[in-house]
């Protein structure tokens, strides 16, 4: 291969170099690709917005005509089994949970707010000191810039919401959604990745930790057996015949 002179930019007809140029160009997005990406985003956002609207509308229609059942109208079936009662108990817990969580969330919010206040008070002597004043100025201007950015993003959000609604009027998304769901369900790589990461958490310390906790389990069992003459736990799960054949 003959050396070329040092003129720059270097030009050559060597196909391998042309290939390198093509490879680099993969890293840049064309305006068409950016538009495709925006279109996909609009489709996803539009599906979510329209789906939520349709769901809310339907739910309110149902709730409007449905009368709530009062406790005194309930007739308890004489043949009600323990299994039925368990089902009702689960349902009761299910409907009680959101309110319970709502109350606990309030507490958590208060706690996190207090933590924030406490940290702020602790940092106030530092942030109010002359050493910190140049930084404080920058912080204020950064906050002002941040507000402008947020305002701009909010306006963009308003525009894109309309765009997303419009794009859905031109597209039937059912097939597309089904295809995507099918693809995700059949995609086992994600599942395998998490499985390997979880089971493979093995190192000297972790293994030792696991062995020790397993030893404590055995020790607890031994103590309980000696105190209460407890039966020896089965060393393997015995598969029951009723569970063997699927759900």
């Amino acid at each position, binding site marked *: 291969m003959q050396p070329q002179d040092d003129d720059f930019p270097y030009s050559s007809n060597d196909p391998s170099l042309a290939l390198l140029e093509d490879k680099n160009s993969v890293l840049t997005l064309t305006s068409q690709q950016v538009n495709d990406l925006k279109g996909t985003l609009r489709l996803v956002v539009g599906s979510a917005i329209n789906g939520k609207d349709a769901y809310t509308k339907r739910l309110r229609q149902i709730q409007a005509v449905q009368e709530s059942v009062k406790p005194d109208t309930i007739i308890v079936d004489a043949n009600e089994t323990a299994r039925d009662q368990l089902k009702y108990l689960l349902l009761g817990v299910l409907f009680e949970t959101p309110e319970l969580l*709502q109350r606990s*969330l309030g507490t958590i919010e208060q706690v996190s707010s207090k933590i924030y206040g406490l940290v702020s008070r602790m940092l106030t002597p530092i942030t109010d000191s002359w050493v910190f004043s140049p930084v404080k100025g920058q912080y204020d201007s950064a906050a002002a810039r941040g507000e402008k950015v947020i305002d701009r993003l909010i306006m963009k959000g308003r525009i894109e919401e309309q765009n997303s609604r419009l794009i859905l009027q031109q597209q039937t998304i059912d097939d597309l959604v089904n295809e995507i769901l099918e693809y995700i369900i059949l995609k086992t790589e994600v599942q395998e990745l998490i499985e390997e990461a979880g089971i493979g958490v093995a190192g000297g310390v972790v293994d030792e930790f696991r062995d020790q906790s397993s030893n404590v389990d055995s020790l607890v069992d031994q103590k309980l057996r000696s105190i209460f003459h407890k039966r020896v736990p089965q*060393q393997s799960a015995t598969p029951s015949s009723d569970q063997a054949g699927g759900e």
Partner: protein
Amino acid sequence: MALTTSQTADSGKHAPFVRISHPAGFFSRSMAFVIDLIILSVVQLVGTALIQTLLRFFRLTGLVSYVKTLLESSTFQIGSGAVLLTLLVIGYYTFFWTLVGFTPGKALLGLKVVRKNGTKLSFGRSLLRFFSYWISAIPLFLGFFWVLWDSKRQGWHDKIAGTQVLYIPKNLRK
């Protein structure tokens, strides 16, 4: 402690995982549960603190109170935060149980939740197991302590959902 294949020759149709493992004890399971609770609490607290800090940085607390008023005036009285928290907790457990059979806490302790026949839990069974936690918790956590007495080391939630928690054998961890 592990069983040999000959001891379980009649269970050939079941997953090999069940045949070579044995049920996890109370201590390991409690540790795994506590680790999961810590992870969930940290995620929630960090998330809330981060959002609050960001909102205060951008001085958008006015927007938050506006959204709050909007939500309170809505027919849906359930707080969006409560719903999100519920979804986070339910999603955390059901996602990991259904997909791989263990939560991060259980993975750290080398435990796995499987059905009685050794197969993975379906989404419905994971949900049932999660809500059965409440059944186990209501009578002063008796359903959890049941693991100590039960010959198969199953809690009430395991019995309801037809599941068991096994040690992951060492040769399968690598």
